[in-house]
């Protein structure tokens, strides 16, 4: 009756396990060379960027004159590095994680053992969120160590950092929030692209190409406005996801000047609420597309 020496009760759990599904997804992420190549590339870019931040302008003078000004500039710089690096990482890893199940046909093996479609999708989201959180924790440790090293080298102690006003720590948490939101949007976008296309090439291609395309679209809109003399093109840029994500740190820290990376909407006076609404709508659309298509479509792979 059995091919097993172990008791059947040990081998036949009542239902598939969600934590088990998350572990399985983490195993799939962790055992890919691509994952570690991306982490290594991210680490290398981070190192170069930290050197560039320290070397650009006259940071030592700024640091000695106003540690807070230096700190905010440093924070803004590392946030840009993180959002780009983590974005590329999560878009590629996320879209591959989902689309490979379809490409390899393993989706049918997984679902045929009782794991629900939405349970699997939730496990993939969770595993990617864990990977993103680990990336953020690692990056924060490196950025903090780098900051303390700079302070020690230039001032002989870390007191300029530890004595920063409370507002500086509020800005820190706002930047962490922006980084988190950026990661969530990337996870949702990468996953949705993979679910829609059900192939690695389509999923990764759309996921990686999306943000460059909608950042570049800002230039196209500016040109169209000049050509047609219609503001509708410029106004449309306030609804572009990439530019809005780029602008979010500035919208959240309106009391001081924050440089935005790449393109921002070509409309003045956008506030944080508008940014949250646009990001929320895009996130909902990505999530709804992934959930609806995963739930409804037959698995023919």
């Amino acid at each position: 009756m059995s091919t097993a020496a172990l008791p059947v009760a040990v081998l036949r759990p009542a239902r598939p396990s969600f934590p088990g599904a998350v572990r399985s997804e983490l195993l799939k992420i962790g055992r890919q060379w691509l994952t570690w190549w991306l982490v290594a590339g991210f680490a290398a870019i981070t190192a170069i960027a930290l050197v560039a931040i320290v070397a650009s302008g006259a940071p030592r003078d700024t640091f000695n004159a106003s540690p807070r000004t230096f700190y905010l500039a440093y924070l803004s710089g590392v946030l840009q590095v993180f959002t780009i690096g983590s974005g590329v990482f999560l878009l590629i890893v996320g879209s591959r994680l989902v689309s490979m199940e379809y490409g390899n046909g393993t989706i049918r093996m997984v679902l045929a053992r009782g794991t629900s479609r939405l349970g699997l999708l939730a496990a993939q989201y969770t595993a990617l969120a864990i990977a993103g959180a680990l990336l953020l924790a690692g990056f924060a440790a490196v950025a903090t160590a780098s900051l303390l090293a700079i302070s020690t080298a230039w001032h002989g102690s870390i007191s300029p950092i530890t004595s920063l006003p409370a507002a500086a720590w509020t800005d820190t948490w706002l930047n962490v929030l922006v980084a988190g939101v950026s990661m969530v949007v990337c996870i949702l976008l990468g996953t949705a692209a993979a679910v829609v296309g059900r192939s690695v090439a389509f999923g990764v291609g759309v996921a990686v190409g999306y943000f460059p395309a909608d950042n570049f679209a800002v230039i196209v809109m500016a040109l169209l406005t000049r050509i047609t003399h219609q503001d509708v093109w410029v106004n449309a840029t306030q609804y572009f996801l990439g530019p809005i994500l780029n602008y979010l740190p500035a919208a959240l820290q309106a009391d001081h000047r924050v440089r935005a990376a790449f393109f921002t909407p070509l409309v003045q006076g956008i506030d944080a609420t508008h940014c949250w609404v646009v990001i929320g709508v895009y996130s909902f659309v990505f999530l709804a597309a992934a959930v609806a298509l995963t739930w409804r479509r037959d698995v023919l792979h």
Partner: protein
Amino acid sequence: MLWVSTVWTPELLTFFLRLARHKSPARGATLNVNTAVLSTHGLSKQYGSRPAVRDLDLEVRRGEVFGFLGPNGAGKTTTIRMALGLIRPTAGWVEVLGRDVQRHRADVLPRVGALVETPALYPYLSGRSNLRAFAHMLGGVPDARLDEVLDLVGLADRQRDRVRTYSMGMKQRLGVAVALLNDPELLILDEPANGLDPAGIVEMRDLLRQLVASGKTVFISSHVLAEVQQICDRVAIIDRGELVREATVADLVASHGEFVLRMENPEPALALLRAQPWGSAARLDDGELVAASPTGRGRDLVRFLAQSGIWADTIDERQRNLEEIFLSLTAPIGAGS
């Protein structure tokens, strides 16, 4: 167990395995062979205007090996996908282990092992890591079980190698190992010999025989009809999505009262038999005389011929093979429905 097939003839092996399956007291004591483990009820699937499966009723009973046969495009894989909850039926339903699989997939499917078409695996993971990935999904399977199934499918030596380096036969065996991970009650194997070279087919056949001998209920779709005939208790044949025959293998291949006679000069015997009202179907097949008996018994046919001075050298009951039956029941590609 794999060594056995190299020493014994396949026929002898099959005989003993079947004997073990049907006569084991322990097995007989614990099985209720009449329980339906998998059944379909008016099952239909339509893709646009094209029906893939039409009003299909099947029943697979506990402990049996059930063959699911049909030409390419007949609807076998679609039926299996519906049985595994991968696609939704247009009409009807599938019960697995007594429950509607669409409604209770999380309760019943962990008790089912499946291999659907080609083995789907993670090529960048080792064989063992593949098993571990699926084991996590199932809620955790002890490491000892991973060793067990790797031994069972003969992949213990290659478990650390990446699956992309495996041959098709090895991937197929690893697919079976995944299916067996939590010792399922029912195994659904869709074309397990698909894409295999002759050596791979032999490997897969040996493995299937082991599984059959271990008492699994097995639902198998295959094109290798000789294997199906040897291994299966019952078969269903579908064509263009419709069930055309469901019967025991023994019933299908039964003689139906025909005998094969060998003799030096069969033509006079053929003429004589064809002149009889019960012998009009008599014919020559590869120089052998195939004919019915006046009473259904072979000795009466021999006696009848002997009374006319015709002596047969040998006489055997004529058994049809599954391939012959399959071809007679399924229309060739391009024929109208």
